[in-house]
């Protein structure tokens, strides 16, 4: 027997008519959605705190005997002398990088050729001595002693040892996403930078590269 598509459509519509009217209301859903939103916001804030703590704790742990460790209570991030602001565009698509929010996210396919443009704005009266830009699987490591390559960054896409003065500096990079990545894999475009001011060394995420689910 061959099943006609129109006949199947008719059967499906008739079967769907057996469904009763929804018993939930908008009010039921609103409360649950609000709670879930609050949970997600809490998770993001928690992750950002953890990332900040790691970004500070790792360079302190990696610093050799030449740089005496500074006593800081565990989990409390060191104060940064200044913050850099970033703009990111992947394959011509710019994304907003909120000042206190998570880095922007880009959906990319395995094997896709990416043209990445990162704009770094150094604030007035500040100077960045070393900057690395590259890919990480989720760990944001700051540069090692003497501005060495951040341990978790592989591959490195851009690197400068020429000091970055106040103002906008643009880095244009190309990279191909690895092939054969499972669905929903997240890679990070990360940066590691150092400054002489308070000998700070920072690792942070700049953008999230996610393969489709």
């Amino acid at each position, binding site marked *: 027997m061959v099943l006609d598509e129109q006949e*199947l459509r008719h059967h499906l519509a008739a079967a*769907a008519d057996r469904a009763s009217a*929804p018993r939930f209301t908008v009010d039921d859903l609103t409360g649950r959605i609000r709670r879930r939103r609050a949970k997600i916001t809490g998770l993001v804030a928690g992750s950002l705190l953890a990332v900040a703590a790691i970004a500070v704790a790792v360079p302190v742990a990696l610093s050799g005997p030449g740089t005496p460790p500074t006593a800081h209570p565990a989990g409390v991030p060191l104060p940064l002398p200044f913050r850099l602001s970033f703009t990111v565009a992947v394959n011509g698509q710019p994304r907003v990088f909120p000042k206190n929010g998570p880095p922007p996210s880009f959906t990319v396919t395995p094997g896709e050729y990416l043209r990445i443009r990162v704009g770094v704005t150094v604030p007035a009266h500040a100077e960045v001595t070393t900057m690395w830009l590259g890919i990480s699987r989720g760990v944001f490591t700051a540069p090692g002693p003497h501005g060495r390559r951040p341990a978790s960054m592989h591959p490195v896409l851009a690197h400068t040892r020429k000091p970055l003065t106040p103002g906008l500096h643009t880095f244009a990079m190309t990279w191909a996403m690895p092939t054969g990545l499972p669905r929903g894999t997240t890679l990070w475009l990360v940066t590691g930078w150092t400054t002489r001011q308070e000998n700070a060394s920072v690792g942070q995420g700049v953008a999230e590269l996610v393969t489709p689910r």
Partner: protein
Amino acid sequence: MESWKQTLAELSRDRFASLKRQAFLLCGNDGQAEDLVQDALIRAFARPMRTPRPDAAEAYVRVIMVNLFIDGARRRSRWNRTAPLLTGTDMSADPADQVLTRDVLLTALNDLSPRQRACVVLRFFQDLPVAQVASALGIAEGTVKGYLSEAMTRLAARLSSAESE
């Protein structure tokens, strides 16, 4: 009013019933369909949407619903393999389900794999083109065609045997 609440309110006016009908075809069970629609709506609206228009939101909810159904079916099949080892078989079937199994098509749909079932519902109930079905499920168009062809053969066999009975 926040924009997502406004969109949700607009959807509730006339699209909740339509979402429930699609969920019912996926699950074949009224209670599970109810849960599926609610879960999909909550997931969709829990994150900020780029385009909180009702039509875009509805399409997004439908995709989430299908993916939740497939994930849930995978979990249920794992559990069904484990459950007999943990408990006795003293559970009785829901009488409402017994009534529903009298619907020949719903019974025939139960014979399909979750992905085949999702393809049939998206293609022939929601009238999506094959390319959009493939995109919603994250699989290749050829795979969708394969699923549809096998599903049609199985449904035809099942419906013809029901007719002869």
